[in-house]
């Protein structure tokens, strides 16, 4: 294959290119401009360009680029848009927070943009080498961002993230090497054909133990990224030490990108029906462990960021229910499971960012991340209390919120595919989670606090918070349009 870059290919990765250009622009402006608050404005408004370019690619066609390394389809573009929205809100809620970084705000925004461009590439990569490098492109800037505040706990979490992401990359690469050694290809679309051919020749599952080991190692590598049990240990420490907007970015964008690759690998290379059952049982078990562990430990937390770290582990468990409800199982033909994941991730984006808008503002105002600093929030800011309460309702999964619709959809797909036990497990877990989510609401509304100074919201912050809340409620009542988009996205990779 002697292909050089063509203009068409450049158009296909135009969103990513514009992200990197925007990042460079921010650094250059940082050099020449004294008033650093302009940088936030440039970074957030500049993001409208990649967002527009991504929507432009949503035309329903699937095109290959760069000798088959990228597949720009509805699915990939959907995840690109999720990442872009997450980046936009992260930058909006960083406005006040980034003042802490003085002269280094430019680097802060540029690193966020570069990390996001890695996640966007990850969503459409269909080749192992490209997947791996896109993964590193998204993780390495994050390690620097986590360490950005110069305090001990931030440095500690940065090092933990760095070491564990290196470890997970090593596991992932070992798995990829085994799969490559067995099949002789790094393109995930060719894998399925070769595996199917080997199944005819061999009695063994997957045609060989080494391939099975490889696939399991790849799954483990990505389980780190989505912080599902038993690979969740890094999340609480890292979430606690990282700058608050980065914690939000990690919990949403990084997780979405991980799920994008897992879905692609499961559906385009290892979707064989013989393997289907094994996958489903493996993922269902991990999902049940993940949600139970996350919820039980979250109850004991006194630091809000640690609480959200365990909450995010539990949420990863709920999302994996959709992964276990494979389309190849009986009753899964309508793709409710994978489409549910996409819908859930979109809802999770809105919900978590609504909560983190409040967490960022409270942590700037009180200089503390303990849950007790939320006492009497009602008197200090009605708007923040409203945003936080709606976000908690959505995280529990009560109507009328997007969390409710997403859980109904995902647990419904599990019921259809014969995983009733998992759906019941999920509902029981949601009840447990209501305990700690509602505790925060109770502290905000009822508990007294001697500090009753009003919290001032900036335009950017209230814009971010209110648009998330608006989205949570609207999608909780009319989920149809996004569900339809999610179905189209899943159909483009099956």
């Amino acid at each position, binding site marked *: *294959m*002697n*292909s*050089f*870059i063509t203009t068409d290919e450049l158009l296909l*990765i135009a969103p990513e290119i514009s992200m*990197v250009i925007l990042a*460079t622009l921010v*650094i250059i402006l940082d050099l020449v401009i004294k008033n650093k608050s302009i940088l936030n404005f440039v970074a957030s408004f500049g993001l409208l360009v990649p967002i527009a370019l991504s929507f432009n690619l949503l035309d329903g066609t699937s095109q290959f*680029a*760069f*000798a088959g*390394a*990228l597949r720009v389809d509805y699915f990939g573009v959907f995840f690109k848009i999720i990442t872009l929205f997450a980046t936009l809100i992260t930058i909006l809620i960083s406005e006040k927070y980034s003042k802490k*970084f*003085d*002269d*280094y705000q430019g*680097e*802060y925004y*540029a*690193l966020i943009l*570069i*990390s996001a*461009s*890695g996640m966007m*590439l990850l969503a459409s990569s269909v080749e192992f*080498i*490209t997947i791996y*490098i*896109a993964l*590193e*492109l998204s993780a*390495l*800037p994050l*390690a*620097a*961002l986590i*360490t*950005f505040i*110069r305090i001990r706990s931030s440095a500690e979490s940065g090092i933990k993230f760095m070491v564990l992401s290196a470890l997970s990359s090593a596991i992932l690469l070992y798995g990829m090497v*085994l799969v490559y*050694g*067995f*099949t*002789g290809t790094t393109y995930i679309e060719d894998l399925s054909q*070769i595996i199917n*051919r*080997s199944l005819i*020749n*061999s009695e063994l599952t997957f*045609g*060989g*133990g*080494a*391939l*099975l*080991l490889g696939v399991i190692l790849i799954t483990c590598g990505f389980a780190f990224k989505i912080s599902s049990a038993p690979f969740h240990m890094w999340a609480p420490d890292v979430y606690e030490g990282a700058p608050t907007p980065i914690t939000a970015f990690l919990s949403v964008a990084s997780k979405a990108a991980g799920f994008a690759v897992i879905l692609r690998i499961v559906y385009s290379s290892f979707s064989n029906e013989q393997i289907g059952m094994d996958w489903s049982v493996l993922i269902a078990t991990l999902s049940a462990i993940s949600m139970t562990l996350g919820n039980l430990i979250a109850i004991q937390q006194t630091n809000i960021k640690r609480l959200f770290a365990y909450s995010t582990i539990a949420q990863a468990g709920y999302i994996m229910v959709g992964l276990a409800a494979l389309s190849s199982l009986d009753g899964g033909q309508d793709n409710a499971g994978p489409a549910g994941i996409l819908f859930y991730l979109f809802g999770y984006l809105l919900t978590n960012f609504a909560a983190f808008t409040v967490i960022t503002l409270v942590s700037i105002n009180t200089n503390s991340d303990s849950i007790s600093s939320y006492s009497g929030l009602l008197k200090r800011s009605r708007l923040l209390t409203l945003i936080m309460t709606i976000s908690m309702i959505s995280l529990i999964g009560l109507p009328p919120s997007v969390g409710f619709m997403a859980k109904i959809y995902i647990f419904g797909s599990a019921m259809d595919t014969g995983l009733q036990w998992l759906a019941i497990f999920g509902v029981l877990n949601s009840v447990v989670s209501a305990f700690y989510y509602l505790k925060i609401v109770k502290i905000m509304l009822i508990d007294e606090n001697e500090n009753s100074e009003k919290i001032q919201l900036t335009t950017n912050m209230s814009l971010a918070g209110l648009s998330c809340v608006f989205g949570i409620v609207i999608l909780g009542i009319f989920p149809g349009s996004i569900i339809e988009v999610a179905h189209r996205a899943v159909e483009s990779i099956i």
Partner: protein
Amino acid sequence: MISQGIASSLTVEISFWVISISTILSAIAVVQIKDLFRASLFLILTFLGVAGLFILLGAEFLAGIQLMIYVGAISVLIIFAILMTREIEISNQSHYMRILVSMVALGFMLLAISLITSTDWNLIDSRSFPQNQTDEIIATVQNSIPTLSKMLLTEYVLAFEMVGVLLLAAVLGALALVREKK
């Protein structure tokens, strides 16, 4: 198959065993030796051993890169870091998880070895290749650098460019992390 002519000779066989055993032994020494400085010297030996294995596999370019980056740059960095850190005597301590960790590592090693040896790797039948394609493969293996450089700028150009952006991110991150405290 292709490298059969080379691989069957006795010298290669002997050097393979010598290199791999010394690589494994020095890797064990890296994690077992208490003195961090000595451990890092053994790490260099491990890197050298890996470079030797690359040469035996016919990947001269990788071996060169391994020598330049790992044996050259990274080991110097590690030694500098050790020299600039105080209290190196207390590092590399034993801890209560030691036995558990070594059991898990040993178990995984045995599992990997048993699965890899039990797998039938000859999925793609080499005899089914047309002659001209086989010639091409042999030419590629014997002279890998031109093929590699061509692939980096054609098939893998996206990955290549991404690494460029990654380097930019690394420089930015490093700059931001070494800033002075105000």
